[in-house]
């Protein structure tokens, strides 16, 4: 962790490392609340799939598997790059950190372009939005299909919002790194945003199989 001596810290902390530990603990607790937020959605997935097995899986087969899989790879790589950046920062190489973060940002942009640019537009074109009057799936698969796409749009939409927030934080960290605010002794904000970014990756790692893979059979 960061050595604590000689650094400014808020008045209610004994020293800077105490404040750093508190910030990290605070972010982990916030991530615990996010786990419960998406947990509610997973319970919806369990119920909807249990009561409408045929239709729900039929809906899952309509999703673009290659976009989902590519996006998963992109997010895993972005998490890796972020961790790489932190490793460089720990030894004081701020320039390498900035490069890694910019790359992470590019991958995130690619994810959003693939997701909302390509996949959502294709979904709307194929009348997959659950409220569509001429819904793509008919007959036995209509009800379960609509339920699946309600889960799909809510899950990926909520994850998309978290991606945007994460990218905002990334830009904020990149600007602070450029201003040289970080040093091997003090880079807590980089770590805290890294936790949030990896968590957004975790959410996608759960949504990806639930949406693209489980119903594929």
């Amino acid at each position, binding site marked *: 962790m960061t050595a*604590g*001596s*000689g*650094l*400014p*810290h*808020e*008045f*209610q*902390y*004994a*020293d*800077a490392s*105490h404040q750093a*530990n*508190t910030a990290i*603990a*605070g972010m982990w*607790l*916030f991530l*615990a*609340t*996010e786990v*419960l*937020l*998406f*947990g*509610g*959605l997973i*319970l*919806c997935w369990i*119920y*909807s799939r249990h*009561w*409408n097995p045929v*239709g729900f899986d039929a809906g899952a087969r309509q999703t673009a598997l290659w976009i989902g899989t590519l996006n998963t790879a992109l997010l895993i790589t972005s998490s890796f790059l972020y961790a790489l950046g932190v490793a460089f920062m720990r030894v004081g190489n701020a320039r390498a950190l900035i490069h890694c973060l910019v790359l992470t940002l590019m991958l995130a942009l690619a994810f959003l372009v693939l997701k909302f640019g390509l996949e959502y537009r294709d979904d709307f074109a194929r009348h997959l939005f*659950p*409220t569509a009057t001429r819904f793509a799936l008919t007959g036995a698969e*209509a*009800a*379960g299909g*609509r*339920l699946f796409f*309600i*889960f799909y749009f*809510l899950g990926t939409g*909520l994850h998309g919002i978290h991606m945007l927030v994460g990218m905002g934080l990334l830009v904020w960290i990149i600007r602070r790194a450029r201003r040289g605010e970080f040093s091997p002794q003090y880079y807590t904000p980089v770590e805290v945003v890294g936790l949030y970014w990896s968590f957004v990756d975790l959410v996608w790692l759960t949504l990806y199989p639930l949406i693209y893979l489980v119903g594929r059979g």
Partner: protein
Amino acid sequence: MNSTAADTDIAVPRGQTEGSYLTDGYSVRSWLLSTDHKRIAMLYLASITFFFFIGGAAAALVRLNLIVPEGLLGSAEAYNRLFTMHGVIMVWFFLVPAVPVTLGNFMIPLMLGARDLAFPRLNLLSWYLFMAGGVVTLWALFSGGLDTGWTFYTPLSTAYAKGHVVMAVVGIFISGFSSIATGLNFIVTIHQLRAPGLTWYRLPVFIWSMYSLSVLLVLATPVLAITLVLLAFERLFHIGIFDPAIGGDPLLFQHLFWFYSHPAVYMMILPGFGVVSEIIPAFARKSLFGYKFVVWASVSIAVISFFVWGHHMYVAGTSLYSALLFSILSYLVAVPSAIKVFNWLGTLHKGYISFDAPMLYALGFVGLFTIGGLTGLWVAALAADVHLTQTYFVVAHFHYIMVGAMVSAFFGGLHYWWPKITGRMYPEMWARIAALIMFIGFNLTFFPQFILGYLGMPRRYFSYPPEFQVLNVLSSAGATILAAAYLLPLGYLVWSLLYGDKAPANPWRATGLEWKTPSPPPTVNFLVTPVVTTGPYEYPPPERTSG
């Protein structure tokens, strides 16, 4: 554990050290933008009181309507929207936030020997989120309101209810984040900012109950957030995950809703346990009986309260096995509450009891909570609940816990720490009168409802069969006494702000770090960080005075 030894770091100074937090800036801006936990607690106290009287007014109109069997207000529409307003305002804008954000915000740093909460700016954001949610919800309620009850059951709330459902849902959604922020702040503070020497088993029970409460706040509220998003989605797009027409399950909404709402009722009572566990030792001059048992009772309530939500749905159509499972778990969660009551009695045993106002509220709490808790066992028994659920028996049960126990504890805590918060003593005689009137008015209001419930009078009924009228009139009469009992403290507490005599640092000669700093405390709480060497309730027996 913060170490003060090598304090080579530059502590960024904040605020002056002489005078009190009240004299540290008088401008509106110094209040509305303050990150001092004590000032934020005062802002919350004002908001809480405002919402309490709005919810109370709605309750008064509901009781007014039930004086005659055909409904005095004349329109079921108005009645349905009134009891929904009473529910929504009271649950989310008074009961859940009341003790933690006012007394908790003020007392946690003081009791821990800390200078402020871990994230002061997050604390201020929490108040603004609370007010934003409150304004949106009030706007929804006063521009027509909604007739779904505070439980928002689908498909009524999503397809058939008229009224501003989505706006109210958005308001509650925003105030949910205020709860999460407060809970997060408390948990991290209690872990990280304890004074040197203040080990976990030297913490006052109030801190333990704030910790357990924060676990509930932080882990249950997000599920409410996603439930409200799903509900708003279904109402706006006329198609959703709970819609039976497309194979959705309305019981899924009830599961998600009660997964939050049962921990929510424990969020309301846990602070009451904490406050009473502080007051009883202080006024019995004796250390808390079975400290470790009371502590682990609070923590186990925080965990087990997440296992029991199914007992709200015994007749809702859930499966037999899930009902059996939730019933046995509901009996399990009642055990810690029983342990607490026995330990409070154990504390009174061989004590030196004085009957100041806080003690009257605490004793009232013990009595009324015992009745509320026991009737909880009635509705936890499956067959009894089939008869009693959705009737006035359940209304009486949860009002005994929320109003009888929780509001008494809130007033008890308010009076107990009033000298520390405002530096003024409240008028003792008036306070005792108010406590007694509240006790009488409360019992007259809600005890008849147990009988009404057994006789089968359903809840949320605008009109009812004539044979229930006498008990309803009794209940409405009690409500007027209760309303008077709530206005009394508002009066004399405000009066004490101006004319109350100056309060010493420790008027009750109580133990606890909060009494080791002047009343009202300076902005930095402690001029020198205190070092704790003893347990929480070391009350020496009083030396034999002449009397």
